[in-house]
């Protein structure tokens, strides 16, 4: 009962912590306010009645979004131009697809800042401010196009990340299963279970061949440390094969039991959990990018055709709410679901 209460308390604390992050950081506030004023406008448009309080709230939220869009340029530029705590620049630690996406987002931010400045009467660009391309303001069309194109690269990058993460997850899941069943395996080997021992023999023979190939491919001068480590692992498997050959089941079981099962299980469980978190982040990123491409294409097409009225406008608002909700989820998930550092193994090969 107390464990259940503790879990509930921890869940509540975690939720409040994420909510606190959401109200302390500009990006979640932007997504939340956009979703909220679009919801109000959708409700007002659908119901047809104009409530003074809600329309005032909607206009205040739009004012807040203008301010946020005006200042977001600083965070975008600092992300690209400034090194992180370890002195690495954005372009050197990310793929070219992600870099392209962020550069396009920064370009979009510049236009959004100019647009916010025009709306708030801080900037006066004269006729340029009212220039349009196909009934759509230039300062709306260009950033939207940049975001849409950037989202394509973001989807590409997330797909690549998913590929890597799925491969790592497969390995981690296999390891977790292996170490979960380790104790049972040791008992079966100790009792002389034929099929288990045959399976172990086949597995170790495959590993010995693989490690021998890896050692042959390494440079003896430059990769001496890696070679030494692989030689130690090779010896370990060869010793086990020798024990199998001599029918020394007890010795083999003792050798298998030398490794710290709990440590290995904890390590690979953390690796698996990290993999799941990265996979979820990649999927949410893909969903976010696809929704952005859809809403921009839809709204731009309707705007160009002069159909941003009535039910079409309501559908744009509804889609916008979904897009902002996905964006808010992405922000909060990136904060709430943090990867853990797996425990470090000792360099000794056991």
């Amino acid at each position, binding site marked *: 009962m107390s464990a259940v209460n503790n879990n509930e308390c921890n869940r*509540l604390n975690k939720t*409040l912590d994420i909510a606190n992050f959401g*109200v302390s950081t*500009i990006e979640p506030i932007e997504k939340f306010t956009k979703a909220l004023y679009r919801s109000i406008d959708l409700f007002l448009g659908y119901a047809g009645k104009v409530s003074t309080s809600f329309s005032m709230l909607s206009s205040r939220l739009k004012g807040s979004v203008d*301010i946020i869009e005006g200042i977001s340029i*600083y*965070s975008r530029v600092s992300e690209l131009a400034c090194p992180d705590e370890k002195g690495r620049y954005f372009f050197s630690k990310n793929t070219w697809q992600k870099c392209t996406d962020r550069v396009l987002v920064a370009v979009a931010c510049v236009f959004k800042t100019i647009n916010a400045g025009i709306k*708030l*009467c801080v900037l006066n660009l004269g006729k340029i401010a009212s220039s349009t391309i196909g009934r759509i303001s230039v300062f709306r069309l260009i950033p939207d196009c940049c975001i849409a194109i950037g989202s394509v690269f973001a989807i590409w990058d997330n797909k690549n990340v998913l590929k890597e993460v799925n491969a790592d997850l497969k390995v981690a899941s296999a390891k977790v299963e292996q170490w979960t069943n380790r104790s049972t395996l040791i008992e079966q080997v100790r009792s002389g279970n034929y099929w288990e021992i045959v399976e172990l023999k086949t597995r170790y023979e495959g590993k010995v061949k693989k490690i021998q190939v890896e050692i042959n491919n390494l440079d003896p001068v430059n990769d001496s440390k890696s070679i030494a480590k692989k030689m130690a692992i090779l010896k370990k498997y060869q010793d086990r094969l020798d024990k199998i050959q001599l029918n020394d089941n007890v010795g083999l079981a003792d050798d298998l039991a030398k490794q710290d099962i709990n440590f290995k299980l904890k390590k690979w469980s953390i690796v698996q959990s990290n993999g799941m978190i990265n996979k979820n982040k990649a999927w949410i990123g893909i969903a976010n990018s696809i929704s952005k491409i859809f809403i921009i294409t839809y709204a731009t097409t309707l705007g160009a055709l002069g159909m941003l009225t009535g039910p079409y406008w309501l559908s744009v608002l509804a889609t916008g709410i979904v897009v902002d909700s996905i964006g808010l989820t992405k922000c909060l998930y990136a904060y709430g679901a943090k990867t853990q550092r797996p425990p470090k193994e000792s360099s000794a090969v056991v």
Partner: protein
Amino acid sequence: MTSPSLAIESVDRNFVAVPIHDQANKQTNPSISTWYGRTVNEVKNCAHTIFSKIVFLAQKVIGALGSIAVDSNTVAGIFRRLNGQVFDALQHLKVIPPNIDKLKNAAGSFVGCVDTLQVVGGVDYFCSKKYNADSDVKVASRISIFVADVAGALLWFQEMSFINLSKAAAALGNIRLFSFVPKVVASVPLVRDVSSLQRVSAFVGEVRVFGAINQLSMCVIARRAQTLFYAFSAVDTIHTISKAGSSSERKIQAGLDLSYWISELALDALLTAGMTNVVGLGVVGAVCITTNVARFAYKTYK
């Protein structure tokens, strides 16, 4: 003694006559070229060093601006002072155009929105028991800012006519919590005949326990709570500075925080005293912004 002509003839035929000034150059040319090369290298290094320092400084400034633009509290604090004092001062001095009402309205909306959302931060602080790790003064400051945030949120919603605080206060103020007492006394057979007890029960039944609420102003509550927050925060930073075990980094951070709290308290005192000098208030507001940015930048970059 040979004649000059014979002396000349005795000269080595292989000797090539070199003009004296070229002879001098031949001996000093290696040092000139070395000096020239060294100077060019030093100029290049100097230019490179200056350029790297400019780039480094620019990165620090952009990084600080980027960090500030992400933190909603700091941005709201900056816009609060810009909207409240600095814009008015700049308009008075005709530095900025007079038609910035849209910007001021948007900035006011942003500050109101962020302040309302900060109620969630207060709820998290108390529900997650984060106060266990803080000193009593710090907890008092958090309570004050929570009250200020709640009052500010109520005022914000009142501005948009979602709620009517005066009506709510009047309704609360009219509550007679012990109105059941005369009825209870009247229902008890022997007790209801005691006239003094009847008078007392009637008096208790008419007591309006929350009558004082009618006299309160939410605006005053929000302002006073915010002043208390600045005061408690200043006291907490003084404790940190005077504590023997504090590291120098913590003391510097506390010093910058203290400068910010004092500037806010000074502005609050000037506003309470009814100061109307727009430029003076603008200067104090600008000081508040500068100290706020400085303390945040140090927290991020130390």
